[in-house]
């Protein structure tokens, strides 16, 4: 134990299951919990929709809410939950010295404008001129800001006054891994005392589904748990709207301000397998080795997406290690892209804090885990690229 250890002192979560660590704990520890699904709105795709959210609770000004679309609102809201949970929200001094690393994709496009342009393109050959004509007259000027990747962080600065520094990492699940890894490295080296880190994903928009489906990644047909989608129609990913933010803090800093510590964040390791050359299995195995896993049974919170190849590789490597009792939470929340790894770390920290594991999320595949976990592993193997793991430990 050292004063520069990284500890988790705040958790903000939103998914189709609800909001906050307590609501998630209560639902996820209920054996046989049924997922919240919407199979109609984007058929043939099933999604896990956002729960009812009162944005006013974390974004007080209507003017701020209007400047954002749902993705930025969701991220800003979830970040607010984490800041509240850590006792930092509203503390000007702590917010002004807090660093921030956000994992982000892009925001929502105007679907109606896009559809109108596409429809007109069927009868026009001068498509470039058509674009200029429609975009100059029909785009809402401020929508651009709601689309910009770094404006989720920008809105967190504006709404919650987090202004120590602001960085946005892009690149699907890997961005979430790098965000947590970089934040932890800053704290360990003494560069930061407290960092807000996380991401959000809003899947209820056709462009967000298109981002997966251009490579045929989405699962079609009846919903199934993550581990059981091999061989089904489509590519295996069922998406969900949600977000996860963590407050990571230097142990001494947390102690000095008398905060509750959920867990310590141990090793975070990341990699880039050249998957086309068949390196994914060996890369995951190498990361497990680097993570310096403790002996004995180890609860493992997997962010597996269901994507056929990546999920099969992850399962093969985890199965080869009989000490790991795996829980793939995306069975119940859907895949939340950039938020996957922060979400996995949050669930791991909650298990350590409460001294209990989660029941199987898919009892046909996931084995039981008894006892109080002292350490929990979190994984994020990207549906297309990039991999990472982190070990969360009792404080």
């Amino acid at each position, binding site marked *: 134990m050292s004063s520069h250890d990284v500890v988790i002192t705040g958790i903000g979560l939103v998914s189709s299951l609800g909001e906050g660590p307590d609501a998630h704990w209560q639902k996820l520890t209920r054996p046989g919990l049924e997922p919240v699904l919407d199979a109609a709105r984007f058929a043939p795709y099933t999604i896990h929709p956002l729960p009812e959210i009162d944005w006013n609770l974390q974004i007080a000004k209507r003017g701020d809410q209007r400047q954002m679309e749902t993705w930025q609102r969701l991220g800003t809201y979830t970040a607010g939950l984490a800041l509240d949970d850590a006792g930092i929200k509203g503390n000007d001094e702590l917010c002004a010295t807090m660093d*921030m690393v956000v994992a982000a994709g892009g925001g929502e*496009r105007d679907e109606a404008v896009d559809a109108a342009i596409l429809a007109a393109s069927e009868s026009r050959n001068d498509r470039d*001129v058509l674009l200029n004509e429609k975009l100059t007259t029909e785009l809402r000027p401020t929508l651009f800001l709601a689309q910009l990747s*770094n404006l989720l962080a920008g809105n967190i600065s504006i709404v919650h006054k987090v202004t120590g520094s602001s960085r946005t990492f892009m690149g699907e699940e890997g961005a979430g891994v790098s965000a947590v890894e970089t934040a932890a490295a800053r704290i360990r080296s003494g560069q930061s005392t407290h960092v807000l880190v996380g991401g959000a994903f809003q899947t209820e928009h056709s462009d967000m589904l298109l981002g997966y489906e251009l490579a045929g990644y989405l699962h079609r047909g009846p919903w199934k748990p993550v581990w059981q989608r091999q061989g089904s129609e489509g590519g295996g990913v069922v998406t969900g709207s949600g977000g996860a933010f963590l407050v990571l803090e230097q142990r001494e800093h947390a102690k000095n301000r008398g905060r509750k510590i959920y867990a310590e964040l141990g090793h975070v390791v990341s990699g880039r397998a050249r998957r086309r050359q068949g390196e994914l299995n060996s890369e995951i195995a190498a990361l497990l080795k680097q993570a310096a896993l403790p002996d004995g049974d180890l609860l493992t919170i997997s962010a597996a997406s269901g994507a056929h190849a990546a999920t099969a590789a992850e399962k093969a490597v985890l199965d080869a290690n009989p000490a790991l009792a795996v829980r793939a939470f995306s069975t119940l929340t859907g895949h939340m892209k950039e938020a996957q790894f922060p979400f996995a770390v949050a669930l791991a920290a909650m298990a350590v804090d409460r001294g209990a594991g989660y029941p199987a999320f898919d009892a046909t595949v996931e084995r039981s885990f008894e006892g109080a976990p002292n350490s929990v592993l979190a994984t994020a193997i990207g549906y297309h*690229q990039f991999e990472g793991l982190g070990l969360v430990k009792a404080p």
Partner: protein
Amino acid sequence: MANLRDHMGRPIVAVTGIGVVTSLGVGKADNWAALTSGRSGIHPITRFPVDHLNTRISGMVDFLPSSSKGASHLTYELAETAAQEAVSEAGLESGDFGGPLFLASPPVELDWIDRFSLYNSDKQDAGAERLLRVARGLKELDVFETTQFGSIADRLADRFGTRGLPITLSTACASGATAIQLGVEAIRRGECDKALSIGADGSATAEALIRFSLLSALSTHNDIPEKASKPFSKDRDGFVLAEGSGALVLESLEGALARGATILGIMRGCGEKADDFHRTRSKPDGSPAIAAVRAALADAGLGEDEIDYVNAHGTSTPENDKMEHLSLSTVFGERIGSMPISSNKSMIGHTLSAAGAVEAAFSLMTMRESVIPPTINYDNPDPAIVLDVVPNKKRNAEVGTVLSNSFGFGGQNTCLVMAREPV
């Protein structure tokens, strides 16, 4: 022998390779010749029709094989070209770099050319439904990869043999500086001996131009394109959208000296501070930008009187140039009137995600060549901004230290301090 640790006991970070591409050309030699002769790369837009557009000029890079292939392909080629120049100057093997990659690049979206082509390849149903149905029948990953935020870095990692999971980042118009900062910090923390930091932006599409236009951010002085970008002038009316890339090979000074590399400059300090005032405007008192400059100086261990030259963010928007002047004059006091401060953007326009890296490359060359590139188009000084902007003509000067500013939408403020020599 030089110190290998800085004033805070951290490894000193050296630059051993520099690469750059802008509308002025490929490579340091062409760019430097143009910059120091005060030549502008701003020209009429030819990549797409300009019907209905208020702004019809840009600093696009139109001479690469990928220039007409969409934002993702061009951004990759820009990054690769600059990185290749930097890595070969550093004398490193270009397929086995052996350190991490930090890439500043624009957020990606499905290009319209692909949207049109997918949509019109079918006739059933309409709108998003049709796009999704066509998408799932695609047999190739080419279009998909243009929509993945990590794909450009993934390809670069393959190409250069960088180590580990590459980081792709965006801090808007400060991104290039942040990529360098991340590399510097990784070396200082002892995570690696060397890092490849790249800022690249080939995203000047019609939609990007229109988006900035709708925010009234762009110059509409279309008639004489090379005169449109006029930082610190009274009649400045917006920035000029541009493309480009800058790449630096960063190494611990110790590692660089041990392998006999040529030291091109030192990354002395980095500073940042976020602004919570507004999505596109800075806090009226300039305090976040001021804090970012001061943080960079403190990180570098230098006082206000130890900066020889400022490579300004200098976008040529009414707001930026006013606020940058306010911030600099607050930090540097009366000395500000006699410090040389110039804006490369007067010639290359605003290269957005690349700007911080491009301008760091030019800052390092300014020190090495003892020549300060001018701020061109300075014909009508803004009386409210009294600065020595190195007007219109280059200046020979010994420059030992440079401050380079980068400010962006979303309250992003990042400053870099570079030095010619190790301490």
